[in-house]
Structures are given as structure tokens and as C-alpha cells.
């Protein structure tokens, strides 16, 4: 079976990460922001897996840690979004201006 070259896997990972980061900057819906952040974390998972043939099997184990942490974050994050929605009837961060300097 042919192996995928490291450069290509890393390139894909960097691309996904960039899409996620870009999305966080331009989108205004809290749920979509959150999905973009999840995309960034999964891009990192891809990088860990891509490095693991060269740098050791730990890379694959770290992916499980990251998945677990992302799940915990998702639970808390969605709860926070719901709690904000109860106040504002909206999850658009444009509408959040109680706090500003």
C-alpha cells in the first residue's frame, strides 16, 4: 500500500486549520464559530497522525486526548450558547454589546 507523503498530509492539515481560523474571524454566528474551532482541533489531529510514523506512536495517542478534550469543550460550549440564547433569543455575536470598553 502506498503511503501518503508527509508534505501532503501536513498541507491538508494546514489548509483545514486555516479555513477554521479564517472562519472564526469572519463569521458572526456563535454556533458556526464553534464549528470552525472544532475544525481547527481536527486539523491538529490530522497533523498528529501524519507525524506519528516518523515521530513515534504517541502522536496517535494524543489524538484521543484531543478528541476527549474537544468533546468536553463541546458540551460546555453548547451549554453556554444555550444560556446566552435564553437572554437574547439570538446567537449572533453582533448583538452582544453589554460589555465593551
Amino acid at each position, binding site marked *: 500500500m502506498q503511503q501518503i507523503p508527509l508534505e501532503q498530509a501536513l498541507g491538508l492539515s494546514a489548509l483545514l486549520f486555516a479555513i477554521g*481560523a479564517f472562519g472564526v474571524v469572519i463569521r458572526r454566528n456563535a454556533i458556526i464559530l464553534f464549528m470552525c474551532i472544532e475544525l481547527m482541533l481536527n486539523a491538529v489531529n490530522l497533523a*498528529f497522525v501524519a*507525524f506519528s510514523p516518523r*515521530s513515534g506512536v504517541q502522536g496517535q*495517542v494524543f489524538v484521543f486526548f484531543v478528541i476527549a478534550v474537544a468533546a468536553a*469543550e463541546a458540551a460546555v460550549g453548547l451549554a453556554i450558547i444555550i444560556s446566552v440564547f*435564553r*437572554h437574547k433569543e439570538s446567537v449572533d455575536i453582533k448583538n452582544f454589546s453589554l460589555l465593551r470598553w
Partner: protein
Amino acid sequence: MSFFAALGRPEVLDLARQTHYFWALLPEIVLTLGAMLVLIVDVIHKGDRSEPSRGSIPVLTLAVLAATALANTALFGLRDVSANGMVAVDGFRTFTNFVYLVAAALCIAISMGYLERRGIMKGEFHALVLFATLGMMLMGGSRDLIMTFIGLEVMSVPIYVLVGFDRMDPRSSEASLKYFLLGAFSSGFFLYGIALVFGAVGSTNLTYIAETLGTGTDHGHERLLMAGMALTLVGLGFKVAAIPFHMWTPDAYDGAPTPVTALMSTGVKAAAFAAFVRIFAVAFADAGAQWVPVVWWLAAVTMVGANLVALTQGSVKRMLAYSSIAHAGYLLVALLSGGDTGKAAFLFYILAYTVMTAGAFGIVIANSRDGEERVTLEDYAGLGLEKPWLGAAFSIFLLSLAGFPLTAGFLGKLYILRAAVEGGQAQLAVILVLASLVSYFYYLRVIVVMYMRPARSEGWHAGAGLPLAARTAVLAACVVVVAMFFAGAVPMRWAEQSALSLWRQPAPVAASPAPASLFR
């Protein structure tokens, strides 16, 4: 320490043996069990979900923190043989663990009365504070990047919840959402940085990274390592709230319940800085040519920018938020100074900063009432005359934050300046002094308003005050702030020893290319 030796604590830990991890992680284990105990006791006590928790919960929480501090003393003088375990066994960890425990204890103490008033007296609050403290200890005491990440998340997730703990308050929820989104965003950067460093060096073990960079062997992935360091720096920059990564700080600090703000600006910051020191000043020390100029600018911009913006703030809580950003700049100077004096100055300052900031937030709580926060400058007018004790205590904390002589803050800044000059960062030392001069204005303005201006109305300050336990904690913080000036040599000697232990790591070069610390 003979107590722990009698219990069978070995003198030197060998983290290849699982049982020795038990000793290395004793404080964390005690804290985890204690936090679970708090949750269970709270549920058992309450007949009904909507009932507020008993007053015994904060007491139990403080007892858990005290037990953890006791367990932490088991780490005194402990070393490990190979320094490639997941967790660091050194004086630096012991010292910083005490700082987090002090921060958590002050947070719990000043939350007494405040939580009841806002109707959020729930046992979850206390358990979450304990879990966040656990995360701090794991983050600041880790010797492996992935462990740092897990610690970061164990710390951050409870803090996201705590910021939004007052669900009925739209400001609290909003702050929580902002903090969560930016916090998760920055963790993504930090994690990607870890992945790239892992790819470049072949391990996430900090000791191993330091050795690889130190031997100067060409690992052939210079650019990968550079990118990894840059992304790690961004992630940590967010957590320590250095400008330009500070956008979330004023909002989150302002909207959060005040005891949580106190915890965020002390414990969370201390843990992020401890990880910063371990990753950058120790593991990446030999790649300093790449990151030192960047952090130099971070420190300079943070000190100048935060102090200038703080001048414009009308809310004392928000002013303290900017002040905490400015202090991140001072701590970065200590970090950049390098060497043992720099690390010792860092440890001394983080301890002093924790005590004085938590104390100042204690006074902010004392000035709040049912349903209103009373944080504007006007609300403080006349406080010093009507409530002399509160006024005096607040003055001491503010003077110490400004770095006035006779307070811990002054001595801390002096140590940082000395370290900066010795470490060849004289320009930063000059910027620090100038920035501090600016900061005098907004700290002293609060004191002037407290003593020189009449209160808004007769009896405006009648309800200001704290319950006994919180008052004791604030008084203790006051005493510590002053005592750390007069007896500063004692904590400084301890800080120096702790900083030394960070450097004097045993460094047997691992035979295998990557220490597979996970699988031993």
C-alpha cells in the same frame, strides 16, 4: 518532612515506576478526591435542587485546599532520576502549586456572602473552583507539552462555566460566551503549535526538547520548529492576556462574578505563566534567538498599552482587569531576563501579585450590594472616610499594585528590574519603570476619590462590608503584602531555591530517540 518519609515516601523518584507517580502526583490526587467530595456532600445536604447550599460547603472547600497544601509539602526536596516523566518533580512546581492554592483559597473566602447575595450559592461553584485549581496544578507542573494542554483544558473548561455562573445575569452569560470562544480558539493555536513541535523534534517531552535544541544537532526541521514555537506563543499569549491577545480579558473579567474574576486574574494567569516559563525559558531556551525578540515586543507593548488604556477606565473592576494585563507585561520582563535571578524574580512577583490582586477584588466585593455591582469610580467616593478599614486595605493593595515602597509590589518590581539589568534587558527595565509611573496615576486616582470626595449621598456606604471569614482573608492578604516587603528575603530565598531546581534538572541523554514516556 519526616512525616512523609515515615509514610514511605522515597527520597528520589523514579517515574519509570508507576507507584512513584503516586508520590509525584499526591497533591493533585488529594485535590481531585476533595473536589468530588465537595460535590457529593453538597448533593447529600440538599433536599431540593433549587435550595441554596449550606454554609459548610465553603468551609469544606477551604479544608480541601488546606489538605492539598499539606500534600504539596510532601514534594519539598523531592527529585526524580530521569526528568522525562509526564510531571515535573521540582521546587518550581511546589512553589507555583502554593500560589494556585492561595489564589483558590482567597477566591473561596471572598466569595462568602457574595454568592448568597447574588443567589448563586451552589456547591458546584466550589467544586468547579477546585477542579480549575487542579487544572492549574497540572498545567504549571507538567513536563510534557500534551500534559500542559490537558492541564490547560482542565483549568479552562471549569473557568468558562464559572464566568457564566450567574445564569440570570445577561452580562455574565455574554462574558462566558466571549471567553469560551476566544479561549477555545487560542487552545487550537496552542495545540497546533504542539503538533508542529512534536513533528520537528520528535517528542513532546520538555526535557528532551531542551536537550535536542541544546546539543545543536541539526534536526532538519528548522521551519517546522519555528512555526510550532510561534503558534505555541500565540496560544500562551492569549492565556496570559498579553497585548495584542488580550481582547477577551476586560470583557470576561468585567462580566464574571467578582470572585471568579479574582481567580482568573491570579491563579489562571500564574498557571499560564508557569507553563510559559517551562516551555519557553527552559525547553526552548537554546532557540532564544528566535523567540526572545518577539516576546520582547509583546512585553513592551503590553506594559505600555495596558497602562494607557487603564487610565481611561471609569469602572474599578475594569481598571483592575487592565492592571492585570499590565502585570502580565511585567512578568514577561522577568521571564525574558533569563537565568536564575529572572526565574526567582518571576516567582516572587507572581506570589505578591496573587495576594494583592485577590485582596483588591475582595474590596470590590465588599463595596457591591444586592443586585448592584457598584464598581464605578464614583461609587467609591468617600469610602475611605466612612469605612476606614476597607479604605485602608484597598489603599494598601492599590499601592502595592502600583509598586509603592513598603509593599510587596515594590520589592517584586525591584527584583524584576535587577534581573532585567543583569540579564541584559536594560531597555525593558526602563520601559517597565516608565509604564509603572503611568500606572501610579490610575491607582492613586482611586485612593484620592476614596478619601477626598464626598460620598454620593448620606449613608451610601452603609451596607459595605464583608462577612467575618472574608474579612479575615482580606486582612491576612493585607498583612502578607506588607510583610513581604519587610521580610522579603524569606520568600525570595525560597523563590531562588525553587528557580534553581528548575535548572538543575538531571539530564541523562535518553538512549532512544523519543522517550516513550506514555508507555512505561
